Structures are given as C-alpha cells and as structure tokens.
C-alpha cells in the first residue's frame, strides 16, 4: 500500500520534472520565435549543446536496454526483474532525446515534413525509422513482460529489441561516420564506438535510477547484485576507453589528421581539458577506482561512479560534437588560409541559456516519463520474488 508520504513524494517529483520540461519547452519556443541567433551556434558550429544532450539521451537509451537483454535474452536471473525498468528508461530517454533534437530544428513546426518526405540515402531519414521502431518494439517487449498470456513471447521480443538497439546505435554513430567532409568524423570506428559507449552510459543511467528508486522506497539493494552490476559497468568503461583510444590512435597515424588531433588533445583550450579532465579522469578513471577499489565497496560509491560516468559522457560528447566542428575544414591542404567566413580559424562557441534549458528540458521529460511509468506500472525490481521462486 502507498503511504501518504509516498504519494506526496510522487507528486513532488512529477511536478518538478514537469516544470523542468515546461521550462525546456519555453526555451524552445523562445528559440523558434527569435531564431538560432539566441543560441551560441553560428555558421561554423551549427550543432550545439542541444545535440550534446540529445545524442547522450539517444545513445544512453539504447544502452540502458542492455539490462533487459542480459535478463531475457541471455537468461541472467538477476537482470530479469530489472527488464521492465530498463525498457521504461529506454523509451523515456529516447523521447527526451528526440524532443530536444526536434525542438532544436530550425523549423520545428515542420517536423511533420520529416515523416512525409524521405530521402532514403540520408542517415537522418533512417534514424526516423530506427527511433520510432525502437519505441514500438520496446513497447511490445514491455507488454510481453507485463501481460501473463504474452510472457512466452518475451524472449523473442527481447531478442528483437536487442538486434534493433544495435542497429539504432550504429545509425547514431553513422550520422557522424558518413561525414566525409570533416576530420573529426568520417570513421567507420564510430559505429562500434557509439555502441560500446552506449553500454556504459546506459548502465550508468540505470544504476543511478535504480539506487534512487530503492532509496525512495526505503529499501536496500542486495549487495551481491549491486557488486555484479558495478563490475559490469567497470568492464564497459574500460572497453569504451579502449575504443576511444583506438579512434584517436588511428587518427594520429594519418599525417593529415595530426593537426586536428593536436587541437583536440593538446592545444585546443577547453576541448583537451574536457577530454582529459572530463571524459578520461572524471568520467572513466575515477569511476573505475570507485568501482574496483576494495575499500570503496559501499552502495554510495557505486552511485557516485555511475553519476561520474554520465558527467564524463557529456564531456566526451561536447568535445566530439562541438570540438569536431570548431576545427576548420581543410579545403586547401598545405596552405594557410583566411577569409571573412572563418576559413582556417578555430570557431568559437559559447552555449546560451535557452539552448541549455532546452537540453535540460529533455532530461526533465525523460524523468517525468520514468516517474509516471514507475508509478503506473510495476517497474520496481522485485528480487524477493525471484529468490522465493528459484
């Protein structure tokens, strides 16, 4: 039974998340009225902070579904009770990410055009199908888990969701991988890199949510389960670092990419700082320490490690998306160039409040969907039932 305090807490969080979403929508409206002139974006950095938020949420959405896949496809009993929450978070993050992506369009009022006019050569057009398909498949998957008559279809639905999520993240990575014009992208490595990044980011989001829910309900997560999930997060972090290292090393191997890598990793000001300090130190090394140090085994360190992975994800994406555009296009190799249009110059970009609020609004929408979903359905992992049955 729900206590009065429970109900009060639910409405408190729901209203807060709703307010954050509303502020995000307000910011988007302001941007639509005045144009992108009120953002920090310009004709050199055309994708700004909203893309950092949106891509984080979309990549994490596919990764968070891993928890369900490990349970229903690979039959790990500890993960099975977590499958519904994993599916809910997937849909919520996807919706939050898409909200930001669509409201950051120059003409968000024309979003229907993206559904009526397709260019099938465009990775963006593929993604329209990948995102809507993902939502539909996960919704069916959740149904097979909740509806007893449909339980037997849960495994095939889970398998379909697993395959789809790989395709989806490949699609997200390919948005950048197919950009032959820019030194930062144009790499086939980006598809697998985004998949591995999604593992870590998704699990981190799941662990943060799970800890919060347990704390809210005044329950304590079984230590063995928590340690197991923490170890898995550690493996994902290490795998991500490996692929990020390979991406930069392959770039460094080509002489023509040396200047770009130098900019990103050494003398690019904010970008090397965010890469080394944000992604490597705060987002990877520190979490690994918190997850594997024998003296730091309590629940709050797992929570802190997960939260830091999310912080590192934002740092990584900022460097990847903004830094990748800030470095000038090389139209005349072997020449120094200058023009009135920023040719040959590092572009400057300072995010403005409206675009930041739009990004945060997407997170608010994801939180709102999660809170309402958890309230309406049984998303709380029920380990007691599992241990009683098995």
């Amino acid at each position, binding site marked *: 039974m729900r206590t009065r305090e429970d109900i009060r807490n639910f409405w408190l969080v729901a209203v807060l998340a709703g307010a954050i979403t509303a502020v995000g929508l307000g910011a988007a409206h302001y941007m639509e009225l005045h*144009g*992108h002139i009120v953002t920090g974006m310009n*004709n050199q950095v055309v994708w700004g902070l909203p893309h950092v938020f949106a891509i984080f949420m979309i990549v994490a959405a596919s990764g968070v579904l891993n928890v369900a896949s490990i349970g229903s496809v690979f039959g790990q009993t500890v993960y099975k009770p977590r499958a519904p929450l994993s599916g809910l978070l997937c849909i919520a993050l996807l919706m939050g990410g898409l909200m930001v992506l669509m409201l950051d*369009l120059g003409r968000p009022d024309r979003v229907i055009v993206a559904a009526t*006019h397709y260019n099938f050569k465009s990775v963006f057009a593929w993604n329209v199908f990948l995102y809507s398909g993902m939502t539909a498949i996960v919704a069916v998957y959740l149904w097979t888990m909740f509806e007893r008559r449909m339980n037997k279809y849960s495994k095939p639905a889970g398998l379909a969701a697993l395959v789809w999520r790989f395709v989806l993240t490949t699609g997200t990575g390919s948005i950048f991988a197919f*950009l032959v014009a820019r030194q930062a992208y144009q790499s086939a490595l980006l598809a697998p890199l985004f998949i591995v990044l999604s593992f870590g980011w998704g699990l981190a989001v799941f662990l943060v949510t799970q800890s919060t829910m347990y704390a809210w309900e005044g329950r304590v997560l079984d230590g063995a389960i928590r340690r197991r999930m923490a170890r898995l997060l550690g493996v994902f972090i290490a795998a991500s670092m490996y692929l990020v290292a390979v991406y930069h090393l392959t770039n460094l191997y080509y002489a023509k990419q040396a200047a770009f890598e130098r900019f990103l990793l050494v003398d690019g000001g904010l970008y090397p700082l965010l890469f080394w300090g944000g992604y490597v130190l705060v987002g990877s090394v520190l979490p690994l320490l918190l997850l594997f140090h024998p003296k730091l085994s309590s629940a709050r360190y797992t929570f802190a490690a997960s939260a830091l992975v999310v912080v590192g994800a934002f740092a990584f994406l900022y460097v990847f998306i903004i830094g990748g555009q800030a470095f000038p296009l090389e139209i*005349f190799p*072997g020449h120094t160039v200058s023009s009135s249009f920023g040719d040959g110059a590092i572009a400057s970009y300072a995010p403005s409040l409206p675009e930041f609020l739009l990004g945060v609004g997407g997170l608010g929408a994801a939180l709102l969907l999660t809170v309402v979903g958890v309230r*309406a359905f049984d998303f709380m992992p029920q380990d*007691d039932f599992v241990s009683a049955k098995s």
Partner: protein
Amino acid sequence: MNPVPPTPSQDAAQPERRGFLGVAAAGLAGILLAPGVRLIEIAQAAPAAGAATAGADPQVRWGMLIDSTKCSSGCTDCVTACRTENGLPENPGTTGAQWIRKIEIKEIRTGKTQSLPVMCQHCAEPPCVDVCPTGASFKRADGIVLVDKHICIGCRYCVMACPYKARSFVHEPQTNQKPDVPRGMGTVEGCTMCVHKVDRGEQPACVQACSAAGHGAIVFGNLNDPTSEISKRVRAIQTSQLRADLKLDPGVRYHGI
C-alpha cells in the same frame, strides 16, 4: 537490512491505478494528437507541389571556371554583387549568410599567395543532397544544387556534410527580401548560381561583377557544350577541383592553384 515484504496483492492497488492510468492516457493522447492535427493543417496549407515550370535541361551542366591568376587580392566585387543580387547581409558576422567569400591562401612551403572566391561547388555527387533527410537539398537536372525552402526543416546536417563550407543557416528573421530569392529563418541556404538569372538566360551576378571590374576571372557556362567558352578553356588550360580526393565532381573548376 530490513527487507520490505512484497506487496500482498497487486489487485489492492488496481482501482486507484486504473483511474490514474485512464487520466494519464487521456492526457497523453491529447498532448500527442493536438500538435499532430495542427501540423497536418500546416502541411496542407502549403501550395501544391509541382507548380508548372519548364524544368531544367538535363543536357546542360552549368559550371564555372575561376582563374585565380586573374583574381585580385582585396577585390570583393563578386561578393558584393552576390549580396546585392540575393538580398544577403552586407556585414555578416559569424551567424550571417555568406554564399560566396574571398579566401586568401598562402602555400606554407613556398610562401606563394593567392586570392580566390569559394562558393557552392555544385557537385555532381553532392554530400548535402545525400544527407538531407527530407530531400530539401536537391540537384537540378542541369547540375545546380539548391535547397527547397518549403521542405527544409533546418536540421543543418547538410552544413555538416559540405566539404566547402558553402552552406549558411538563417539565424534571424529576414526582412527586405528579393522577390526572386526567398529566404527563411530556420532554413539552410547557399549559392544558387543565380538560378533565377540563369533561367532568364543571364549570367550569375558574381560573374557579371568580375567582368565589369575588368578581371574576367570567372567564366560561367555549359560544361556539356563543347563549343561553350568554359568548355574550350577547360580543355586548353590546367584546372583543378577543390577536395578532388572526395571525387564529388564539382561544377566549379579552378585554374592557377
């Protein structure tokens, strides 16, 4: 550790949950449907596609030859003419549109300096057209690459994809537009090769301005017509393409770089 006993029966919470679900579902349906209905109205309000036009001639491939040996450093007549012709801002900052710009280049090894204009290269294999999700970026049969302002949603993917930085995003509301060159906040645009003039049998504004200044550094014409001035020149002198490594087959050629 105090494990909380599991909820005795899920049915106990059913009526409350059902009520909540009903309200939530109705609310969600309203939120999802209302904008959709509004958007369909907007979409239907757009003029019918395929309004009668003669259509571009597929036998033609419009192109330009830019002779950097004739292009004078410091001269921006082509840029000014483009801005005047197309109603572009006179002093664009980082957010203003620049369909053509003068680039000063200096070879690092030899110190050789040159000045040349760069604009949309009107590729035969344009990356902007490949990446555009709605097909707003398109190539006419005669090789001119354009943006359909009615279906551009402003995603800026084409700006990311263009190797020549030839596209601009319209960041602000526009006033005093030219009737021949509609522009719109929130959409992407770039050099149209003055398609409105070309279709009338005229030369693009930048080409006219360069001739008027006495440089004659830009030749415009039909690359498919062996008797055209541009074809003769391209056959006679060494020309190069920018980012030829990408094999995009640009319609704009350069001499002297």
